[in-house]
């Protein structure tokens, strides 16, 4: 199929990518909107197209637990989940990263209950941002499938050895058909280094994993993880570059800039919303506005340096968060402002909470946001720092 594009559902595109990465073990549990990924993988296995052990666990907790067992045994491992499933795995997520197991997980982003809601936002993966996982966010199905391959090369790098999440918007990507180009299995295998971990469960060399870490050593283990995440920054760039070169993509860097060169106003977000953001930028550019956008492709490690660099020169940044920490703000916004504070780049900053629980974010809403940013620029100050966009009735906080 190489470089031959095909119209395909996002979930299936990812499943094809994973088939090419050839994990030895898949352990997964169904949850909307991740289901089509694992169903497709099941079908590959049933049809003999993929030679993985597929463990049909009884819960997400066991999905990630079986991944831990499998990865510690030296097997390349895959799982995927969403929302409630990711929350249920929470304890195991920390465990996987603390054990330094390069598991790759697809996250079909979905909102959290209560109230139960099966539609897209980012509260799920953002909510586990402390768990020590690398987090990549895809804008398109192409990116989702490419990242699913890249993830193995990043995670399994000896200087990294951290589990990696590939986040894609539930429904908006997973259930949407669009053209993608899927590398051949051989090409993928050729791109990926074989997984040969230094330590694994092996009767030939019987090591003990998951010991008690006393106060004497614990800080150092955490620091090593911290350090590895630091290393990941370069490794990610390198892998993105190599991949782009090999497969003719232009997906480089932890962030992507869009018409930011001379932009006074910069819209910043992550995931599939970037499409409509770019469209909005284009149409506002046509109106003569100096506006640009930044897409965050890696949220962990935090792309601090890249962001500051890209924002330089702008007057106002508007951060669109598809999550909100109740009692605080959107996570991307908070984390970005942290970086801005200690830089000499100091635009006005506004946070917009958008798209919670599948609330659609059409161009009009993004234009509204751009207008608010413009107003801030005019006034030279931010009146209301955080706003929920398209809030109904009494709750409209305009």
């Amino acid at each position: 199929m190489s470089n031959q594009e095909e119209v395909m559902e996002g979930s299936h595109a990812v499943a094809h990518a994973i088939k090419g990465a050839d994990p030895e073990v898949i352990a997964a549990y169904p949850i909307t909107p991740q289901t089509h990924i694992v169903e497709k993988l099941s079908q590959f296995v049933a049809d003999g197209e993929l030679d993985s052990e597929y463990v049909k666990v009884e819960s997400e907790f066991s999905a990630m637990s079986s991944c831990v067992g499998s990865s510690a045994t030296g097997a390349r491992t895959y799982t995927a989940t969403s929302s409630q499933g990711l929350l249920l795995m929470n304890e195991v997520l920390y465990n996987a990263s603390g054990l330094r197991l390069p598991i790759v997980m697809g996250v079909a982003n979905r909102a959290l209950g209560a109230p139960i809601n099966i539609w897209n936002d980012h509260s799920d993966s953002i909510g586990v941002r402390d768990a020590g996982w690398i987090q990549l966010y895809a804008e398109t199905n192409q990116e989702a499938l490419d990242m699913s391959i890249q993830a193995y090369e990043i995670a399994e790098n000896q200087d990294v050895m951290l589990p990696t999440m590939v986040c894609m918007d539930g429904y908006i990507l997973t259930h949407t058909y669009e053209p993608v180009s899927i590398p051949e299995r051989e090409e993928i295998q050729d791109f990926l280094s074989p997984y040969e971990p230094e330590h694994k469960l092996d009767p030939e060399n019987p090591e003990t994993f998951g010991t008690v870490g006393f106060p004497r050593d614990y800080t150092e283990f955490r620091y090593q993880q911290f350090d590895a995440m630091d290393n990941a920054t370069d490794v990610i760039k390198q892998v993105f570059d190599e991949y782009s070169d090999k497969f003719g993509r232009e997906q480089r860097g932890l962030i992507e800039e869009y018409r930011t060169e001379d932009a006074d106003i910069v819209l910043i977000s992550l995931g599939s919303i970037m499409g409509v953001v770019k469209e909005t930028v284009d149409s506002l550019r046509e109106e003569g506005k100096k506006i640009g956008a930044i897409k965050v492709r890696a949220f962990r490690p935090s792309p601090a340096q890249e962001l500051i660099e890209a924002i330089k020169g702008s007057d106002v940044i508007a951060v669109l968060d598809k999550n909100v920490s109740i009692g605080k703000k959107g996570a991307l916004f908070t984390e970005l402002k942290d970086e801005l504070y200690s830089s000499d780049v100091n635009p006005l900053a506004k946070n917009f909470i958008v798209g919670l629980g599948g609330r659609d974010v059409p161009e009009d809403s993004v234009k509204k946001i751009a207008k608010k940013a413009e107003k801030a620029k005019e006034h030279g100050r931010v009146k209301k720092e955080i706003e929920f966009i398209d809030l109904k009735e009494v709750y409209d906080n305009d």
Partner: protein
Amino acid sequence: MTRLEKKERFTSGHRACGGCGLALGARLAMKAVDDNSIATCATGCLEVTSSPYPQSSWKIPWLHSLFENSAAVAGGVEAALRAKGKQDINVVAQGGDGGTVDIGMRSLSGMLERGHDVAYICYDNEAYMNTGIQRSGSTPMNASTTTSPAGEESFGNENRKKNALKIAAAHNIPYVASASVAYPDDLIEKVKKANEINGPTYVQIHTPCPTGWGHEGDITVKLARLAVETGLWVLYEREEGEIKDVKKIKDRKPVEEYLKPQKRFKHLFKKEGGEERIQEIQEIADSNAEKFHLDEE
């Protein structure tokens, strides 16, 4: 004359209390697995006392992940071995009673149901010992623990001991067995069998805990034996659903003999109404005797 394998796969230097039945159980179980094995272990006394970084008491590859997922982790190990064509390696999952019959029940049930080739060993010391002797589902009725303390209005634990052997068996797995540290040969034979049989198997080992039960360390084995001799802990196997090889008892001892040396039952001998509670326990033993035809004629 030397009957048990000399090789220790669970080595000295572990930090278990003196006289720990659990440590003894693990040591014996590790004689039943060969070197070509991989073990998982749930959080608990066994894990904490045997893996203080940078040291380990384990001679076979061993992985502790969390408290509630030993079975699921083992399932993942086994799947990886299958993927690699290394089915010759045995996989043993271990957990305490709490990690098995309570918080680990879902992951155990799933592993059994899916038919993984894993031998699960539950070390049953009848409470959450590692955290300071709290009640578990496996705590016997009327035992005092720190969360089911005897008190003005309480005789200790109100529920009957959960029958995890029966629950495991209800999963239609090929082999289920109970064992006791007081019967090492029997224990080792059962763990061996559990390992050899293809598919999921479950062995529950009764392991007295001096600290948690409040007895002197020297009578750990004696108490384990008394549990069997009173009929409170029945040694048996269940192969393909059929109960087999029940250990018969010659002169079944009254439960008092077992209860008396243990502080967790002390209130039964002191508090008013204790006698009836002891009688309740005797009835459990009697009903076991009846169900399993324990009494040797």
